[in-house]
């Protein structure tokens, strides 16, 4: 039992900075559970090392790399500083439960959706987040026989301009208003295809550009 407690405490030192700080400050007293004297000695010694900080950096780096890989446009839209703040909040509430990327990505989507509902204001975030979440939903690992449900994402701004801007690493500004719906599904090669479902453009500029339903094919983002 103590071996299990020891491993849990060591993992907590890596993932939970507040716990690490408590052990650093309070030593043995901050440790819980059935631990032998030697295990307590080892844990308090580990908490004081630079090596623990390096291990925590690797832990955070791995988690962050999952988000960059699965939600690149959302990460780009948030920018480094705001992304760092949001992942700190997210990670404080939820430890990593899997090696796999999708679990981390969907968890972060849930976090951002809750933050948006509770007042977070980031221009275009709701649209970009919904688009990337829907893309992930289509790509989510599943058994071959379980075809994914098609996805619909509502936009209030021109998705072509918005998403391409982000995919080029540019901060979107003054994206033209365009109320439209994107329809996503997998093609025969299991690649995500997004179509304009119906053109509900409100701006005359956009109406002129898209009279007919238009297919756009890209795995991650819309292409012109």
């Amino acid at each position, binding site marked *: 039992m103590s*071996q*299990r407690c*020891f*491993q*849990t405490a*060591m*993992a*907590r030192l*890596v*993932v939970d900075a507040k716990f690490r700080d408590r052990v650093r400050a309070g030593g043995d007293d901050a440790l819980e559970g059935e631990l032998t004297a*030697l295990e307590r*000695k*080892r844990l308090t*010694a*580990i908490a004081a*090392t*630079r*090596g*623990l*900080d*390096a*291990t925590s*950096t*690797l*832990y955070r780096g*791995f*988690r962050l*790399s999952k988000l960059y890989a699965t939600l690149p446009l959302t990460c780009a839209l948030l920018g480094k500083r705001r992304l760092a703040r949001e992942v700190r909040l997210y990670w404080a509430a939820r*430890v*990593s*439960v*899997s*090696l*796999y990327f*999708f679990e981390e990505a969907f968890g972060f989507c849930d976090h951002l959706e809750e933050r948006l509902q509770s007042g977070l204001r980031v221009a275009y975030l709701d649209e970009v987040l919904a688009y990337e979440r829907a893309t992930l939903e289509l790509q989510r*690992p*599943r*058994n*071959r026989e379980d075809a994914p449900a098609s996805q619909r994402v509502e936009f209030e701004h021109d998705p072509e301009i918005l998403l391409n801007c982000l995919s080029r690493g540019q901060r979107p500004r003054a994206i033209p208003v365009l109320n439209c719906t994107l329809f996503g599904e997998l093609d025969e090669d*299991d690649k995500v295809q997004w179509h304009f479902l119906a053109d509900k453009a409100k701006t005359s500029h956009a109406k002129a550009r898209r009279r007919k339903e238009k297919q756009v094919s890209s795995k991650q983002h819309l292409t012109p």
Partner: protein
Amino acid sequence: MSNTPLVPKLGIGLAYQSALRPFIEEERERFDFLEVVPDILWSNLGRGHSPQYVDDAEGADFMRRMRAEMFIVPHSIGLSIGSSYSFERNHLTQIKSWHEWLKFPWHSDHLSYNLAEHADGEMNVGVTLPMPHDAETLDLLAPRIHEVRASLPVPFLLENNVYYFNFADEEMTEARFLNRLCELSGCYLLLDLHNLYTNCRNHEGDAYEFLSELNLDRVLEIHVAGGMEYGGVYLDAHSDTSPQAVWELLDYVLPQCANLGGVVFELVGSWYQEVGRERLSVQLARMKELWLRHQPAPLREAVA
């Protein structure tokens, strides 16, 4: 050691990453086999799902194509064999199913744990956390290794771990611990020279002392890689070419590993652009030169 299972002398290997695919496809003559972390080519849907593991069809197809030309050796991260809390037995079933079509001559995982209890559930740290070199750790590992060995007809290797902090008052040196683990469990070793270099650099150890104490007959595979300094700690980041000290260790150890099957270079895909095709080629050429100096010519015709 007369009872050591033979593995084919595969020669020089490259660790697969999707970003390396252009290199893998266009520079095949530079390496003799591929190593793959199979976990990146499947998804674990979680316990309770049936099937629990779903292959990435495109990635698995690529491996099938490559298998027609060379051996592919799996190097897993999913067993968490050192976790007191939970050991991923279903991962073994998945590895076994891959053996049916990949026909690999050995397989390996990390001598570490990443699964631990957390509140009412579990956490997966995603980092290979170390375990103390104590008898209690051997007691945990040995029966699990027996289980792994019983499930597959090929040798099972564990990789000496990289660790950024030490444990106070360990009962054994790392080398003695690894020797004892092999004796008790029948496993073999994947000797990661960059892990060894990183540990010695960070903790002021002596790599040659470690190697002189280690039973090198148990080493069936070697890893080389590069890393970086971060926050006063040298990281096994697989982010660069190998340091000169690692090449010297490889030159030193290669003639002493009688049962060696291959030497693999590891590079994280996101660093490939930084390292570049040319420098990666040079790494592999250097490995090949050392291999041919100290080991028999690779058996490429062994591909089934």
